């Protein structure tokens, strides 16, 4: 029914387009591209992949219904040449291209899309939540319909994620794959998909190791423009080693250099350095449970903390390219608050608020994950700045460094008074941030229930289900301003992200979702 009311929210392009920047046949088969990164990968099976390195790999091996190019967050055609969305944002109809082929030369049809997406849902691994409440069906061999139980205008953005890559259903089923409702127990295709690939992307998998090297070679049956490099090698390298390698090698990219490491290459003519604000967000979250901490649950103390922090010091510490987070949604996403709307430090106001709280010698423990860095920035560095800032307004902070596995367990069990955490986008859409609203899964970790602010919850529902992007942006902006006025969240900063590549390369850009599209790297 909703489908019949399909609106003309469609994109259409000429069939055959896809990869944007790779050079054409004249420079094809240029050799081997080497990408050094600190591996965070457990599998190449898209239905089980939610890791940064896994996304780079799966984006190269598997086409998705829609995609993005370079650093852009604008959806573009991939396997689907166009789509339509119903006015109520519940039904999305994708029209598949007819010339797409898997690496074994067989055509990609709607049957493969249905199998792939149902497999993600039923395997119930980490990416399953992306399709929560969504059903998938085929309408002919080249049309696929996604129906969402609730309005979800983020669906076009969601289907770009590499976890929703389309696999060759016949091949995967023949190697133990299943999309049946009991697939979480019966699907045995991971080992197969970790040894070879079954996709229609520009590359095929020829070597896979979660702690060594992953080798991709060009897919001879790729339907789009051939990638420049016939071979791509991703190597697991620590950041200091990446820094040395990228300066000595050619056709080489380093993905994990911190802003300060990248700055040392500023005058090096052999490399190109690109720094920008990462879509990752550092934030403070305060418990709303007075039993856990009456100090952190106090509205005046919360405001005092918000005005007491030296945000400039955060961004200076994080290096060139870092920006203060004005809200929870990254500045480059739809609905992201501009930096001019960010909270500014006001020590007099903060001290007055501490006094107004009536709490004598307020104190709290700040927990943070101690064994991970985000964009080369250690949580400990920021925690120490927070401790000093809050000390200056009369709030004593004890910092508690916790290994990430333990941190997540205690965080989810509402055990912390104050945490310093981060959020990386699962897909480039503000709907990914609805979990921060009262009663959302992140808010529930520190006891901020839906009943705390029903108006904000209702506004979130509206923003999350509105089809009109201009209106959505306005609604999300309003939500973030309200969160800044009163909520247990204090956005801190978006750290700097750096990508460094050999001077001769083109298309060296970081995508917010899958970091790097290796097929888009070309040569000058």
């Amino acid at each position, binding site marked *: 029914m909703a489908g019949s009311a399909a609106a003309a929210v469609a994109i259409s392009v000429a069939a055959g387009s896809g990869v944007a920047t790779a050079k054409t046949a004249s420079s094809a088969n240029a050799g081997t591209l080497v990408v050094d990164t600190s591996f965070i990968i457990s599998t190449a099976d898209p239905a089980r992949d*939610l890791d940064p390195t896994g996304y780079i790999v799966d984006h190269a091996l598997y086409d998705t219904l829609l995609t993005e190019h370079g650093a852009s967050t604008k959806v573009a055609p991939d396997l689907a040449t166009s789509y339509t969305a119903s006015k109520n944002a519940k039904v999305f109809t994708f029209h598949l291209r007819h010339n797409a082929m898997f690496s074994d030369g067989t055509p990609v049809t709607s049957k493969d899309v249905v199998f792939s997406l149902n497999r993600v849902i039923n395997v119930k691994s*980490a990416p*399953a*939540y992306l399709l929560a409440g969504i059903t998938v069906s085929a309408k002919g061999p080249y049309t696929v319909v996604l129906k969402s139980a609730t309005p979800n205008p983020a669906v076009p953005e969601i289907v770009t994620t590499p976890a929703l890559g389309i696999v060759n259903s016949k091949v995967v089923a023949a190697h133990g794959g299943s999309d049946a409702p009991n697939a979480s127990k019966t699907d045995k295709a991971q080992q197969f998909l970790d040894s070879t690939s079954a996709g229609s992307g520009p590359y095929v998998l020829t070597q896979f190791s979660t702690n060594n090297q992953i080798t991709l070679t060009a897919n001879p049956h790729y339907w789009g423009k051939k990638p420049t490099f016939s071979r791509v090698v991703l190597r697991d390298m620590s950041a200091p080693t990446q820094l040395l*390698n990228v300066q000595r090698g050619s056709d080489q990219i380093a993905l994990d250099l911190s802003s300060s490491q990248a700055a040392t290459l500023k005058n090096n003519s052999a490399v190109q350095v690109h720094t920008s604000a990462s879509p990752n967000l550092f934030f403070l979250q305060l418990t709303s449970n007075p039993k856990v901490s009456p100090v952190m649950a106090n509205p005046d103390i919360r405001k005092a903390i918000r005005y007491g922090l030296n945000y400039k010091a955060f961004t200076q510490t994080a290096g060139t390219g870092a920006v203060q987070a004005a809200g929870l949604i990254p500045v480059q996403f739809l609905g992201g608050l501009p930096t001019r709307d960010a909270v500014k430090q006001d020590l007099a106001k903060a001290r007055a608020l501490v006094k107004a709280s009536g709490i004598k010698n307020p104190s709290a423990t700040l927990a943070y994950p101690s064994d991970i860095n985000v964009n080369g920035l250690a949580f400990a560095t920021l925690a120490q700045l927070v401790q000093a800032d809050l000390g200056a307004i009369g709030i004593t902070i004890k910092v508690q460094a916790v290994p990430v*596995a333990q941190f997540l367990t205690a965080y989810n069990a509402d055990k912390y008074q104050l945490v310093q955490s981060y*959020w990386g986008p*699962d897909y480039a859409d503000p709907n990914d941030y609805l979990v921060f609203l009262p009663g959302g*899964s992140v808010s529930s970790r520190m006891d901020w229930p839906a009943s705390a602010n029903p108006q904000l919850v209702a506004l979130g529902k509206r923003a999350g289900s509105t089809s009109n992007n201009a209106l959505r942006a306005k609604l999300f902006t309003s939500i973030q301003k309200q969160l800044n006025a009163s909520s247990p969240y204090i956005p801190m900063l978006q750290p700097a992200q750096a990508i460094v590549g050999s001077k001769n390369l083109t298309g060296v850009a970081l995508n917010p979702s899958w970091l790097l599209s290796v097929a888009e790297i070309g040569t000058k």
Partner: protein
Amino acid sequence: MANAGWQRLLPSRAFGRFVGRRLVALVILSIGIVVVTFVLTHMVPANPALANLGQNPTPSEIRNFEQINGLNKPLPVQLGLYFEHLLQGNLGTSEVTNDPIVHDLGQTIPATAELAILSIAIALVFGVGFGLLAALRRNTVTDFILRILSLVGVSVPTFWLALIALYLFFFKLGIFPGGSRLSPADVPPPHVTGMYTVDALLAGQWSTLWDALRHLILPAIILAAANMGLLTRYTRSAVLEVMEQDYVRAARAKGLSRRSIVFGHILRAALPSIVTVIGLAFANVLTGAVLVENIFSWPGIGQYGYQASVALDLPAIAGVSLFIAVVYIVINFIVDVLYGVLDPRVRIQ
């Protein structure tokens, strides 16, 4: 007469009992290590599901993860199942890669073995050689330099040495390649042992062999540094002690050649002390491998164990611990037996 001569060389009954006792202890120790590792890793107040399911897992995904990995069962049941599987040669399945731990260890052990064997060989040749030289040239400039070098080897942190070596020999001088086991353009040789140098040799792929060797040498030297220092110091003091013995003086008085005295009398007598240090050296190599493998991007068991710890991959942690413990126990067992071989007193007693 000939028979009696042979019997003298055979181990005594007491020595046979000694070896038997050591073998029983090896099994009991291994079981104990499995229990301790298993209990300790499960006592960590953290849920592996949350460490592996991204930043926003649903309760149903968490339940599914716990069910698949048997984490919803009581600890004694999990331990019992672990032993049952262990007897069948099954170390469980990684919660991160979903591959059998035996498969993961099979991928990583050859890389570490290749590194460790070369590292121990370098440490042994240079450590014993330098120690002997230092003792024979006691209180000379050579002795002084070697003592300083051995002190540096023992005391400089491995990770620092690795970073400096990489900067100097790869980045500045370009003598050795950077991290990893092979150059990006090279393809691994056909799998036989998993050790690239051996496999390349077996396949007759000389350019791959050369590439693998070039990648192996620098991390092996770094890993050997501490052991070289240790062996130099121990060998020096053991040789100095033996040099004061009456039978060495007697050998000199009999007019034996210097070479015969050094290698036939002094070094032979000093060997039991040196062998003790070799047992320790293996332990150093296994612990040092964690750092060296991370810096040189060497996909061995050290790197695998480190990543398993960060992700709280309990079966992988238990598998790595068990492997390292068994290696350590077996090496010590071999060292004990070697005492008997090297020192007739142990064999007879």
